[in-house]
């Protein structure tokens, strides 16, 4: 077990190193990305631009710049932005993190509860009209682009039906911290949660149903049935447990990616300044320090989630061979 952990740790470091190098190279390959002129400001004379370039260390060779940036990001932790001079990058990311966490955490609650309910009901009533309807609804949920759904939700709640009793309580777009005003925090996030969860409810509901149905053909279920247990008991007590393994592993991977910033489209549409939005803005601004910090943050969670899921899978399901 220990050797497995160490191996995964080494892999994690390797992967994150690879990603950081990739980001660095992509950045410097972009024309117009040389920040010296933008930092120096418009109408700056060539001497001023040269002075700025030197002060930011941009005249040093690439490997040196890379090493310096990594050192300032991880060791001294005082990396500053190219766009907002003097602003430290790590606190910026740390402030955006709770917003993403609020969005993704709340959505996760909705989609776990929703998909388990749908999956169980559909499997229990397999073949019936209800089962078909639930599956089609799930499919529709998977087929909608999340940003488009968000726009439609905004159209209705912020504009068309905003003045009716149905949606008059919906606050304007933006984020209110939980510590500041919990009730507004909840009201602001309710629709983003539902929008983000829609995709995953459909997906996970179908997966759970498929796994439950498949499990019901397994030998140990047939044994339970022959023992005289009721179908619902079999479903909830025996089949669900094994089906949840796949469910949990899927969830770990998706949640990890979302915490890192994959919910960026939802954040953009609902004007939530989370990590995803921060990354996207940094990419548009070609603010390399912020890009590096956010991409490292995101890949850390993805890689961590991957590792945890693999380990959990290995411990939970003894049939799995470790690659």
């Amino acid at each position, binding site marked *: 077990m220990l050797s497995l952990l160490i191996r995964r740790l080494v892999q994690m470091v390797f992967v994150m190193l690879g990603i950081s190098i990739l980001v660095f190279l992509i950045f410097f390959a*972009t*024309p*117009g*990305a*040389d920040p*010296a*002129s*933008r930092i*120096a*400001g*418009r*109408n*700056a*004379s*060539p*001497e*001023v*631009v040269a*002075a*700025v370039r030197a*002060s930011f260390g941009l005249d040093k060779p690439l490997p040196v710049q890379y090493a310096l940036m990594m050192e300032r990001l991880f060791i001294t932790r005082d990396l*500053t932005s190219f*766009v*907002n*001079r*003097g*602003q430290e990058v790590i606190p*910026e990311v740390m*402030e955006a993190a709770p917003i993403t966490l609020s969005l993704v955490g709340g959505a996760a609650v909705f989609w776990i509860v929703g998909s388990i309910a749908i999956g169980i009901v559909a499997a229990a009533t397999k073949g019936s009209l209800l089962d078909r309807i639930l599956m089609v609804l799930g499919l529709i949920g998977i087929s909608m682009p999340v940003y488009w759904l968000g726009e439609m939700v905004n159209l209705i709640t912020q504009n068309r039906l905003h003045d009716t009793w149905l949606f008059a309580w919906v606050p*304007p*777009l*933006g984020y209110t911290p939980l510590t500041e005003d919990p009730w507004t925090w909840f009201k602001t996030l309710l629709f983003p949660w539902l929008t983000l969860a829609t995709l995953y409810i459909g997906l996970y509901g179908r997966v759970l149903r498929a796994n439950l149905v498949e499990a019901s053909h397994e030998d140990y279920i047939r044994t339970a049935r022959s023992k005289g247990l009721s179908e619902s008991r079999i479903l909830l007590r025996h089949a669900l447990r094994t089906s949840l393994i796949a469910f949990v592993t899927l969830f770990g991977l998706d949640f990890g990616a979302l915490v890192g910033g994959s919910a960026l489209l939802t954040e953009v549409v609902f*004007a939530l*300044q989370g990590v995803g939005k921060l990354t996207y803005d940094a990419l*548009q*601004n*070609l*603010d390399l320090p912020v890009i590096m910090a956010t991409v490292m943050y995101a890949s850390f969670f993805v890689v961590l989630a991957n590792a945890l899921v693999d380990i959990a899978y290995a411990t939970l399901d003894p049939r799995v061979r470790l690659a």
Partner: protein
Amino acid sequence: MTRTTWLMGAVAAAGLMAASLQPAAAQDHRGGIMRLLSQSAGGSLDPKINYTLQYWTMYQYVYDGLVTFKHAAGSEGFTIVPDLAEEMPTPQDGGKTYVFKIRKGIKFADGRELTVKDVVASFQRIFKVSTPTAGSFYNGIVGADACLKTPATCTLDGGVVADEAANTVTIHLVAPDAEFFDKLAVPHGVILPADTPAKDMGSTPIVGTGAYMFAAYDPNKQLKAVRNPYFKEWSKDAQPDGYPDEVHYDFGLTQEAQITAIENGQADWTLDQPPPDRLAEIGSKYKSQVHINTLTAMWYAPMNVNIPPFNNIKARQAVNFAIDRNATVKLFGGKVLAQPACQVLPPGFPGYEPYCPYTKNPGTKWTAPDLAKARELVKESGTAGQKVTIIVQDLTVDRSIGTYLQSVLKAIGYDASVKALSQNIQFTYIQNTNNKVQISVSQWYQDYPAASDFLNVLLGCGTFHPGSDNSPNIAGFCDKDIQAKMDAALALGVTDPAAANKQWAVIDKLTTDQSPVAVLFTPKYIDFLSKRVKNYVFNAQYYWQHTASWIQ
């Protein structure tokens, strides 16, 4: 004269009258917190570094220079008045020497008194921290070239000389400069304490002598300004006391959310222009809270005169004839928000004389495009069928204008396409000749009210730096004869500004005829204020004066 709506004029006039007739009553309006909004912060707070209008408007009431732009409404705001200097010095030595007598008793926000030492140190700091305009505005000071070469040891010996006994600072120039006072009046020339570190102070506020001081700055959240406890008003024109007790500038909300916040009374004003889909709403339901002012600025399409197809003057003129400026005005927001333009200098600028050759009936005003003439010119130029790429910023209006231009170029015979780049790289991208940009869409706002700020900066040989990201002469235009005329006008401006302006009008016509750029329109600026903000004052140099208004 700047054009303003009757609304703004009435309010401003009333405000000015009220202020001058009843100074005692003004006391009643003191107090409150002014809440400003913007989608993002403006970068470094250091006045010697920052080059954004966003913070330049605030520096007006936080810092002072030797001279400054008058805190007045409309184009009165272009007048330069003495600030830390007791009076405007007369030029000596043929315009190469100016002696400033510094006022006594002016205190920084930390209680220290301002001395001539601070003045000298502030000028040295311009070079030490590599102010963007160090090489373009302040290179005329004696000793500046040494400072540009080795900024760290900048002394400006012989350039800025202090006399402690007489309490004066003398500035020696290499050559007379008609725009000298303008350059001192912009925030890059403000006076800071001598012990301010010689590096970009970023988010750490620096104390100033203005009516307010910066208390805190978090570029992700808020910029806070409060009253300067040591401030005593010495000149109403240069640094008036303000009404609100504090100014809070919040960052992060989207444009849509900002408009909603102002409508709901949760904020007072936003820097960002309203998104196009809210214009009709605020123009009708909230029209009493809307103020529209013409800017001395332009939206234009510079054409690279050094590479095909626009190295051919007929091709460039064809583009100018083909563009339907009414369509671009519509895309910007309508007739109320913009006015078609053909020439480089904007209306209301010194040296402006209406002139438009690129319309169906050439004369002084643009009326309609002339597609037939444009197609003819393209044929004559022999450039028909060539590939042209238009580079625009990826903001809504820019992109829509770019898409429209692509249609126009196709209609007159080019194989045109559009490319949208992030607004953060587009401006440097189109300046660098290595990127071989043929035509782009850009904007230019004045630094200060001088014709050279448009003509010499955008079309002068000296600002064309091939292969550099900083080459504001995007068109790459350099005509020896016209340059000679510009140099002559600059020199003439030292002694006879009126005659110089007439020269600039001639230069304006000449450059417009050469068609290195296609000017689209003169934009107007919308100030959308909340219900409780009263006494709106719009200054042509720095726009809405935050602290000249009070909160009901």
